[in-house]
């Protein structure tokens, strides 16, 4: 901020509350706020909204106090899910108003059976390997640096294999994650910020993951985070690379 007495400082207030202003900016905004009634009123509104958002983010991102044990591996859990990721309305929801409990159970069994068929088909396809013409590329993403050196880059290639998707991640220029840290790959829906962990990036900066096609459909971006090896499965909120998947 170069103007010592700006007309109003309302646009600076979010950065002030987030601790993103320099010393000079902070003092200039403070001096203005002391004598400007309209900006004082704005400060109240912006503080209320910022506090509300921070509380919401904390609630959404707080890890569970204790993870419930899962009888089967996480990857198998995900494949068992018969429900398309939100925000698409799943079929079972559309059936709620028109079906009673009996129909509901029948529908659920049908969906579970359909999901099992998809999973089995994917497994068979994976077992058979690639088709004669090679895997078809369905999506690509160029990963750009966020909290990473400007030269850091990455590329994602998604290929199809009969109901499943193979996600290949390749990065370049990321610094070593450091003692007790690692890089983790996530699928991301920027609209809802819903995220699904894919797994750790190998020290080589490469990784390949298998994902059921239905699960991929709910995500349109790939994110790589820097994680502490402390057992907390939540995203650390430190994203180093991110890119949008394009067809």
């Amino acid at each position, binding site marked *: 901020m170069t103007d010592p007495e700006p007309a109003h400082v309302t646009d600076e207030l979010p950065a002030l509350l987030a601790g993103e202003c320099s010393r000079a900016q902070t003092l200039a905004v403070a001096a203005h706020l002391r004598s400007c009634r309209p900006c004082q009123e704005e400060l109240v509104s*912006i503080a209320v909204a910022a506090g*509300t958002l921070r509380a919401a*983010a904390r609630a959404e991102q707080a890890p569970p106090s*204790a993870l419930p044990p899962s009888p089967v591996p996480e990857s198998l859990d995900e494949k068992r899910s018969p429900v398309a990721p939100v925000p698409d309305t799943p079929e079972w929801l559309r059936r709620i108003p028109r079906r009673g409990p009996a129909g509901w159970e029948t529908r659920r069994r049908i969906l579970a059976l359909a999901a099992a068929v998809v999973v089995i088909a994917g497994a068979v396809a994976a077992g058979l390997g690639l088709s004669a013409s090679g895997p078809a590329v369905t999506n690509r993403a160029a990963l750009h640096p966020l909290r990473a050196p400007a030269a850091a880059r990455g590329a994602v290639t998604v290929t199809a294999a009969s109901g499943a998707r193979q996600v290949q991640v390749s990065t370049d220029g990321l610094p070593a994650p450091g003692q007790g840290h690692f890089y983790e790959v996530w699928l991301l829906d920027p609209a809802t910020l819903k995220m699904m962990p894919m797994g750790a990036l190998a020290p080589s900066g490469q990784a390949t993951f298998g994902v059921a096609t239905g699960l991929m459909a709910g995500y349109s971006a790939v994110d790589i985070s820097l994680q502490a090896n402390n057992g907390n499965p939540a995203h650390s909120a430190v994203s180093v690379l991110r890119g949008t998947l394009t067809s």
Partner: protein
Amino acid sequence: MSEPPEPVGPRLVAGDERALEECYQRYGPAVRGYLRRFVPTPDVEDVLQDTFLDVWRSRGQLDPERRFEPWLFAIARRRAIDALRRRRGVVDVAVVRDLMGEDGNQLAEQLAWAAEVRAALDQMSAEQREAIELAYFGQLTQREIAEQLGIPLGTVKARVARGLRKLAVLMEGRAL
């Protein structure tokens, strides 16, 4: 700027089937996130279905004058407790205690509030919502947002400030 969405609570009470789908689209991710904290992963989708089935079945008990989100998360919490009881002996008792105790109730209330915030964000312009989500849920600085979106820092500042003013009006208007 989006039109303010009609509250789903009164429409559910009136038996509007589309309100149930809107309810799921708006709150489904938050409810799923809540359930994942307590319910074993293979059960999450089933409990999510049970929750929204219960929302529809119990809609006559919903007071349309009261906030909808805490009512929804109270149902989700009850269904999660039922699921854990069915798995007694498999699930860590600490998880059951957390869910049934004050912590579980408080988390449900906090997530209900977060769901209201998400619904309020839907009433903003796409540009304001994007800047605010990157700042507060993506935890990027305003400078990082400007770089990521390829827009001037001043534009980011204006979008965030205007969005926050709008959010304050919306949230205080709901008597929070």
